[in-house]
């Protein structure tokens, strides 16, 4: 018995000791991922004791959630109703009569595309199906039920690339082969009014769409996801035959994608109508059905140029991730980690935006004008061979006529006026689009300033009853006519010469009007323009001073991105490139650029070596923080965050507030921003929760379900209706307000909207970006952002900046020139911040030149703060396991908050005696505090905020303690029992 007792205590001692070791090891390991664990488990990290006298700064406009939900459903419908663009309508096929019977075609008709994938993925579990929408608009049993059942069981489904660790090769269209329809074909003549073909292409975070991947050639034409695959071609060929046989009367195509399909087929296969619908969100498909039924008159205008050849753009010549040719010499393949498991290429790849400003219609319309005018070595350019539908295009069920077009210069603006008459028989909405052309001069040629033939500069949309005339007055800001001269003036200029204004039904119509006004040879034009709709304004003087200062801050504007331009960056060892120029189209046409890493590029930013990093830190300190003196920290004070809810950003009292915070609390706040902010007890700043956009409040990423899922951003922009955008922004803010509960869980920040541009049709996240046009993106973003913030939710407009592709996004070097950067890629963000008052942005994964965007001082401070006057916080893109997003380099450049961190990344630790670092950290903390104090998080008033250890950490600590006691007890008992055994 005694032996048995000893054995028992021996076992218990071993077991408890082992468990003790497990607990001890678990403490540092789990702490390293504490933020992610907290978010995943929903563990509380703070206790908020509310202030009974709290002032409510933001409140809901809805008495109950049901009212809000009902409004949002209708709003999503309305956005789609005004965003969907009718591209083809032969013989007035649409609208369709009541009682029309449909047979849907393609697996995507059953498996409709509601939104993209990745962090912006919205829950489509309960979204309305195409069949339900059609039945709703045309009556029950309007959709062939047998065809519907066939697709339910056909086993074919579109496949997206995985968000994390995915790649282009995973995309599949998976259309049903024609020979599999079998017996269901006998039902078609009963539902033969319309063959309704849905062509869908999904996009998502992490992988661009394949544009010519050889291994995908068995699945898609030339390995190109945006071309019709052979099964789709076969389907359309057979439908054309069935139409000839009278089985089907009409063929109607719905383009269900934010990535523009290559539209080289719409004149074939007997297609009668084509409607672009984008990603439709939760209820948008009901609006599509209403358009088909004619209860809604389509008024959407496409915000991208739809092409017959998607590869014809200059941007496509350099799209993707290109490895530096000598990467092996620099150990790039294994350097630096990031959030994509198994991928270590944070400094391996580059992309060169060799096309400069000639993206989308800026290329096609400009090349066209130069061809017509016989200039710029445009060659025998065939516009019609490239372009299927120009930017701004869209049909209606009625017709509109313009008259009385006039332009008046009024100081810093122009007032454009015209009358629009609805000359048809049905009511409809119409978007007036104002374009301008600035002179392309010898100065431009000499100084590499490029000019597009037309640029959108104003719009308005109104309802016009049949037979009625509406008067439009549109203000164009003179500032929008400027160009950025990065070679000579090094600021914005307004050149002397002839400017043209015109109203166009689309961008191509606009350039034709201007060409007509110039008296161009109509024999070379695609259509005769209307010179009466063009207005010439002469600017007598070259102005390089008026726009050389920020209209927001009054600070000077000058070059900030010379290090991102291969022709200006001095560390590239002479690897210059030729940007596309309209002075010589053929001679400057882009080709694949081959680049190598130089020692200077490595030291300036690509290196992951700590010695190099330290040198970069010292350079940043001496360059940007040379005058820094050691500020005070942890000062005893009585100020609290809630006192600053209405305090302007430039109020000096902020310094006093921030000085109360000890260094450790500041770094804790800056380090850990993964979908939340940490509480700062020393100033009673509550921690908050932040969630993804941009199609709505997409809490599905982190658990739970989404709130309202709106359409993709391009559909939003295609409405050209800023009132709808404003309503949507407020509703997104409302969803955050309603997600906030009394337990101290405050949802007050949104990762969105997206404001990058559609540089090519193949970017995986085009559904999260508005358009190929930066100016339009900025106008829409401004309204949406202001509306979201109106509900007390601070924004992080993403992904700042030049993150216009997914391939290689983790640290890819993006090379461009300053004119293109400013005039295209920053415009959307400028609208968000400078015009919309957006409090924040999310910096991007990529680099500008060799510098990670969050560490680029010109971008994060020069542009954001000095030119645009941003007041709140800039968060990083997901920084979990992304050591290249170095905290030191970030805060010194103007980066404020990191979206997660991991063990080994705490590079601010131990630098609490470094005046520059501490000053930079305090600045970052102030920005974060500004965002939170100006959000509905302040509805808690002067609450007491107490940081608490989350339950799971407490449990581990408790288990560790218990195990220690048990181990000690077991050891004691073991010794005692052995002694007894020995004695006995």
């Amino acid at each position, binding site marked *: *018995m005694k032996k048995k007792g000893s054995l*028992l205590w021996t076992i*218990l001692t071993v077991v408890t000791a082992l468990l003790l070791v497990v607990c001890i090891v678990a403490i540092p390991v789990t702490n390293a991922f504490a933020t*992610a664990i907290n978010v*995943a*488990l*929903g563990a*509380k990290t703070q206790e908020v004791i509310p202030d009974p006298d709290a002032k409510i700064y933001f409140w809901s406009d809805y008495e109950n*959630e049901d009212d809000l*939900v009902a409004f949002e459903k209708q709003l999503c419908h309305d956005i789609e109703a005004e965003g969907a663009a009718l591209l083809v309508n032969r013989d007035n096929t649409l609208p369709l009569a009541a009682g029309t019977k449909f047979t849907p075609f393609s697996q995507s008709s059953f498996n409709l595309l509601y939104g993209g994938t990745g962090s912006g993925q919205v*829950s489509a579990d*309960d979204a309305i*199906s195409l069949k339900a929408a059609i039945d709703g608009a045309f009556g029950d049993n309007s959709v062939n039920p047998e065809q*519907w*059942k066939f697709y339910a*069981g056909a086993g074919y489904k579109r496949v997206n690339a*995985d968000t*994390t*660790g995915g790649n282009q090769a995973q995309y599949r269209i998976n259309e049903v082969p024609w020979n599999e329809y079998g017996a269901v074909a006998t039902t078609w003549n009963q539902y033969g009014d319309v063959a309704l073909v849905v062509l869908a292409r999904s996009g998502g975070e992490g992988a661009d769409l394949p544009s*010519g*991947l*050889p291994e995908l050639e068995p699945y898609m034409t*030339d*390995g190109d996801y945006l071309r019709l695959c052979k099964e789709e071609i076969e389907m359309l060929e057979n439908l054309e035959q069935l139409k000839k046989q009278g089985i089907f009367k009409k063929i109607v195509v719905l383009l269900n994608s934010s990535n523009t399909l290559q539209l080289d087929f719409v004149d074939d296969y007997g297609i009668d109508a084509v409607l672009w619908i984008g990603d439709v969100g939760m*209820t948008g498909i009901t609006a599509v059905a209403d358009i088909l039924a004619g209860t809604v008159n389509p008024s959407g205008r496409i915000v991208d140029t739809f092409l017959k050849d998607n590869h014809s753009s200059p941007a496509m010549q350099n799209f993707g991730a*290109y*490895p530096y*040719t*000598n990467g092996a010499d620099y150990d790039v*393949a*294994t350097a630096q*980690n990031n959030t994509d*498991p*198994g991928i270590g290429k944070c400094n391996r790849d580059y992309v060169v935006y060799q096309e400069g400003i000639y993206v989308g219609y800026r290329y096609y319309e400009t090349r066209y004008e130069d061809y017509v005018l016989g200039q710029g070595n445009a060659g025998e350019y065939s516009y019609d061979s490239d372009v299927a539908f120009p930017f701004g295009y869209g049909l209606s069920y009625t017709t509109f006529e313009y008259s009385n077009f006039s332009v008046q210069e009024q100081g810093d603006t122009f007032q454009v006026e015209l009358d629009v008459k609805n000359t048809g028989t049905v009511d409809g909405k119409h978007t007036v689009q104002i374009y301008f052309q600035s002179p392309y001069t010898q100065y431009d040629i000499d100084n590499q300033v490029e000019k597009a033939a037309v640029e959108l500069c104003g719009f308005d949309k109104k309802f016009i009853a049949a037979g009625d005339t509406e008067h439009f007055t549109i203000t164009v800001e003179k500032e929008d006519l400027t160009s950025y001269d990065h070679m000579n003036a090094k600021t914005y200029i307004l050149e002397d010469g002839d400017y043209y204004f015109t109203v166009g039904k689309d961008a191509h119509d606009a350039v034709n009007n201007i060409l007509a006004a110039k008296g161009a040879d109509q024999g070379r034009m695609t259509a005769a323009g209307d010179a009466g709709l063009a207005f010439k304004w002469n600017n007598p003087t070259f102005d390089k001073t008026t726009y050389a200062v920020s209209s927001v801050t009054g600070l000077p504007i000058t070059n900030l991105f010379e290090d991102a331009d291969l022709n200006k960056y001095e560390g590239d060892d002479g690897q210059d490139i030729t940007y596309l120029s309209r002075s010589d189209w053929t001679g400057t046409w882009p080709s*694949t*650029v*081959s680049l190598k890493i130089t020692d200077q590029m490595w030291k300036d930013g690509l290196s992951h070596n700590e010695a190099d990093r330290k040198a970069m830190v010292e350079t940043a300190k001496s360059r940007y923080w040379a005058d820094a003196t050691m500020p005070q920290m942890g000062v005893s004070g009585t100020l609290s965050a809630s006192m600053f809810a209405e305090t302007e950003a430039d109020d000096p009292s902020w310094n006093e507030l921030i000085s109360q915070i000890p260094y450790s609390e500041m770094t804790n706040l800056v380090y850990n921003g993964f979908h939340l902010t940490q509480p700062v007890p020393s100033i009673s700043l509550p921690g908050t929760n932040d969630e993804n956009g941009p199609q709505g*409040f997409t809490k599905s*990423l*982190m*658990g739970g*379900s*989404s*709130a*309202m899922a709106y359409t993709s951003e391009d559909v939003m922009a295609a409405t050209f209706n800023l009132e709808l955008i404003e309503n949507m922004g407020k509703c997104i803010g409302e969803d955050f307000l309603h*997600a906030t509960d009394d*337990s101290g*869980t405050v*949802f007050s920040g949104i990762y969105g909207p997206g404001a990058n541009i559609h540089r090519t049709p193949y970017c995986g996240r085009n559904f999260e970006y508005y358009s190929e046009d930066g100016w339009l993106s900025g106008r829409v973003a401004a309204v949406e952002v202001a509306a979201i913030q109106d509900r007390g939710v601070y924004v992080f407009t993403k992904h700042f900046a030049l993150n216009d592709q997914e391939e290689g996004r983790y640290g890819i070097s993006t090379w461009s020139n300053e004119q293109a950067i400013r005039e295209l890629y920053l415009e959307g963000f400028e609208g968000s911040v400078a015009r919309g008052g957006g409090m924040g942005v999310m910096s991007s994964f990529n680099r500008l030149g060799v510098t990670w965007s969050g560490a680029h001082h010109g971008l994060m401070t020069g542009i954001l703060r000095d030119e645009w006057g941003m007041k709140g916080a800039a968060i990083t893109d997901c920084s979990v*396991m992304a*050591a290249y997003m170095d905290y030191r380099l970030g805060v010194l450049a103007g980066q404020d908050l990191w979206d997660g961190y*991991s*063990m*080994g990344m705490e590079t601010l630790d131990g630098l609490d005696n470094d005046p520059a670092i501490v000053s930079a950290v305090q600045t970052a903390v102030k920005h974060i505090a500004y965002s939170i104090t100006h959000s509905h998080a302040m509805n808690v008033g002067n609450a007491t905020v107490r940081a608490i250890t989350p*339950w799971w950490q407490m*449990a581990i600590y408790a288990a560790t303690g218990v*195990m220690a006691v*048990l181990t000690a*007890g*077991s050891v004691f008992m073991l010794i005692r029992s052995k002694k007894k055994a020995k004695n006995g």
Partner: protein
Amino acid sequence: MKMKKLLAAALSALMLVSLLAACGGSPSSNSQAPSAAPSEPSGNGDSQGGKSYQFWGTYEESGENASMLNAAFLLNLNEDSTAVADKYMFANFDASDAATNPTFTASYMSGTWKEVEKDGVACLQIKLAYVDEGGNESNAQTAYAYDVAGVYSFDLTFPVVPGMSYTRVASMEGKEGQTYADANAFIQAYKQDFTAPEHVGAFTDADNNGTAYLQADGTVLVYAGYDKFADGTWTLADGTIAITLGGEAVDVTMDGNKATFTAERNLGDGNAASYTLVCEDISTLSAPEGGQAPAEGGEPAEEGIASYEAGGLVLVLLDDTNMKVKYPEYGMERDGFTYVLDGNTLTVTAPGEDVLGAFGQIWGAMGGETWTIDGNTATKAG
């Protein structure tokens, strides 16, 4: 003695309680934005009329993360309308009893199900989510499974890391009734046996379960457990063994006939696991076939008449004039190249754009016309 037993029992119970506490707790409940979901498809209520269904399916990929990602799911749609999905990570090659099998997780996802008619088609509506110990849901989804000749199917999106967007999709199939009697029957159906690569010798790290397999053609494959994380080449000459991994020579230390080298596995986040791999007696090894290491990457030089490492590219000479170019990083290659080899100068002519297609971008960035040959390496000239 009774007291001792009681004391031991109490201690054991206390241990169990404390461990449970470490695994559970009472976190705050998740807040939800208002749901904008439209009305549910028509169903037949909570009771499923005594019906039950069972689904099964897998997600599988090869590569370094296979043991972490690959999973088989057994989903039971029970008579009481509950849905329970068990997860079995078969790529860890553990087919032991489900009750104690660390690679089997009972109720990895759970929720409810019912028969509904959606848009006129009868189907099963299955709602699943990851539910943590505190009852909080994440990765919620609603799926619809349709009947095709008695077999239902749907895609299960499961979290690799619960609560995160790091998800994968398993294609599920199922039918009414029970196909697998219990979890153990399921494990036995989906278990896999680890097959070590063919090898003529090995270096091992018994403490960390690491193995470097030496193959007859001169390839070395390094495994951590069942996951390959590195490959390279090995040669043996005059009693000296030389090893390269990832294109770089590694230090092999000798102690008599005992050879040792170290391999690092990148674990992300700047962390790495180090494996000290030992071959007790290299005198028992025979030199690789042909006495020459194959091309880096573990690929035998069996294609064409010669091949050369050229930066990230591989130039493969197919015959006296034709060659192909491979880009192993993306698994891409293109035929249609021609060459002239004059001494150590290789002059390459690329095919036209119509042949190159997307590969033209790769060739444009990394390729070139003239190369200098040195052994198995080609260096771009100029």
